[in-house]
């Protein structure tokens, strides 16, 4: 969707991915870590390391504490939330909030809606993006660079600037309060993804493709047999980032979705928060929020390396 597009978009502005530095990034680190044990570092260097480790640990606690606090609150009774001094470890531990929350808010339909939107946008949008990237990088087309620059410049347009006309378009089509306004703009592809795959394709020699063309292979076949295997890692990384961005989207859904059972997960927990804050049922709200956090945290835990590498690549211009 163009909203996610514009919020992710800046990633491409003025960035030229330096393939060489990008590739060197991790192996170099690994090598330096390998020498860590063997090589004796100067004493002052080691003392600084100890101090820094302590400072970084305190900072790390500050990064994680709010999330742990959420989890801890979600296991408390409503009374225990207001206990003084505060309980860091809930006593008694109650799991009941995690059962109650499913009937307190349409959490299940929220998850389903989020899955439908994120999966359809990212799967269809990725197919559109990678074919476009292939054409922009390797095929002959008059004015293709001008076209690409126009598309790239468009990501500077803030979503709020176009959201009202977009809304009236979808309203005229009778699509308000359905998932379509969130899905349709996204399936035409994501220019940020096009940008990165195009950049990645610059390393593939043209001669391979020229040879295939002379042999009379169709362009789709060239793409799937020659190009796709090469760009698969780049696609995977961009796919995960895009999926998380769509999953976490909020402004798009809040404009279009009204009925509770149509809402995406982010909206469901936001309205859960609105409803139950006045009843001071914080454990229930925190249980809902924690459930909403789990999917992205799991995805991050699994694909940590790809995510970190591809983000690092975003800014690698040197």
């Amino acid at each position, binding site marked *: 969707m163009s909203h996610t597009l514009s*919020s992710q978009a*800046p990633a491409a*502005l*003025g960035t030229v991915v330096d393939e060489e*530095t990008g590739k060197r*990034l991790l192996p170099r680190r690994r090598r330096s*870590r390998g020498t*860590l044990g063997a090589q004796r570092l100067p004493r002052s*260097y080691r003392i600084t*390391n100890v101090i*820094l480790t302590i400072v*970084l640990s305190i*900072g*790390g606690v500050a*990064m994680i504490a*709010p*999330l742990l*606090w959420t989890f801890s609150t979600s296991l408390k009774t409503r009374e225990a*939330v*207001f206990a003084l001094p505060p309980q860091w470890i809930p006593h008694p531990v109650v799991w009941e909030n995690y059962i109650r929350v499913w009937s307190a808010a349409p959490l299940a339909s929220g998850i389903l809606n989020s899955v439908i939107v994120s999966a359809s946008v990212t799967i269809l949008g990725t197919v*559109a993006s990678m*074919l*476009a990237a292939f*054409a922009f990088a390797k*095929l*002959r*087309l*008059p004015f*293709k660079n001008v*076209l690409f620059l126009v598309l790239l410049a468009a990501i*500077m347009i*803030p979503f*709020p*600037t*176009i*959201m*009202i*006309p977009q*809304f*009236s378009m979808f309203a005229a089509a009778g699509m308000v309060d359905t998932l379509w306004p969130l899905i349709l703009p996204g*399936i*035409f*592809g994501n*220019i940020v993804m096009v940008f990165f795959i195009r950049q990645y394709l610059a390393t593939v020699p043209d001669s391979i493709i020229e040879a295939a063309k002379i042999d009379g292979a169709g*362009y789709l076949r060239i793409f799937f047999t020659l190009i796709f295997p090469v760009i698969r890692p780049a696609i995977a990384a961009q796919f995960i980032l895009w999926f998380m961005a769509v999953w*976490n989207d*909020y402004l798009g859904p809040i404009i279009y979705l009204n009925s509770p059972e149509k809402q995406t997960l982010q909206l469901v927990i936001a309205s859960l*928060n609105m409803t139950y804050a006045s009843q001071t049922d*914080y454990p229930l709200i*925190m249980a809902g929020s924690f459930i*909403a*956090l789990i999917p992205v*945290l799991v995805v*991050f835990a699994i694909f940590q390396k790809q995510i*970190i590498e591809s*983000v*690092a690549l975003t*800014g690698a*211009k*040197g």
Partner: protein
Amino acid sequence: MTTTSTPRRSRLHRKEHRAALAFVAAPVIGFLIFVGYPLVFSVFTSFTKWNGLGEPIPNGIDNFIEMAGDRYFWQSLGNTVYYMIGIPIGLVLSLLLALALNRKMRGTTFFRTVYYVPVVSSLAAVAILWQWAYNGDFGLVNQVLAIFGIEGPNWLQNAATAKPAIIIMAVWKGLGYSMLLYLAALQSVPGHLYEAASLDGAGAWAKFRHITVPMLSPVTFFLVVTNIIGGAQIFIEINIMTPTGGPEFSTASIVWYIWQKAFNYLQMGYATAMALVLGVLVFIVTAIQFRLNRRFQFAID
């Protein structure tokens, strides 16, 4: 030879053009329908009075005149600019973090992950938990402050502390991202630059000032540009943490105000005009930064 090969080549080219056109069609069509057309339409709507249901009624520059005298417009715009104080704070902190994690030290990978967790967490959930953390009586923030004998305010209910509270949260959320970009850039600074400087007798500070900072300037530029574009659109935090725009309208951002006017008051014409002004402002600021950056890099050369 040439007479036979030329038609064949042009036929091949035409076939290639057709295929390329088909492949780029999706993003181009998507752009025309979902960005191009709405953009043109929003310029038109800005000069109308429109409730979103009926026909827009042209009213000249009335919307812009109203805007000039709208206290809430200026205040929400001012709040949005105020939030950007968080940008330099975040950049300095993330650079320090990246410098620390770039050392030969155990646990850097672990810390990198820990500092990145808030970045991937959904902003809606994070805003909800920070709203709770800022609770005056039982929130995490004040409980931590109490350990040091400080009695914290009721952060979000207080016009003086609401904006700083949101800035702190935003810095917390975005720190890991800038850190990662700086770390990647630090690792790509060629080592021989530092070696040469050491031979010339440069100290650690001189090396940082004259090698590290200039070498990182493309990343800094990128982060400043993207943070300003993103910061101009701050909405989710405001909508969740202070649903009414905060005490004395102190937290309302410009996008929050536009959204409120468009979808709660159905003043679509006026809201579109404000959104257009926002778009133009973002464009101007970005253009200025690109110009300054060019001159700055020129100076380094």
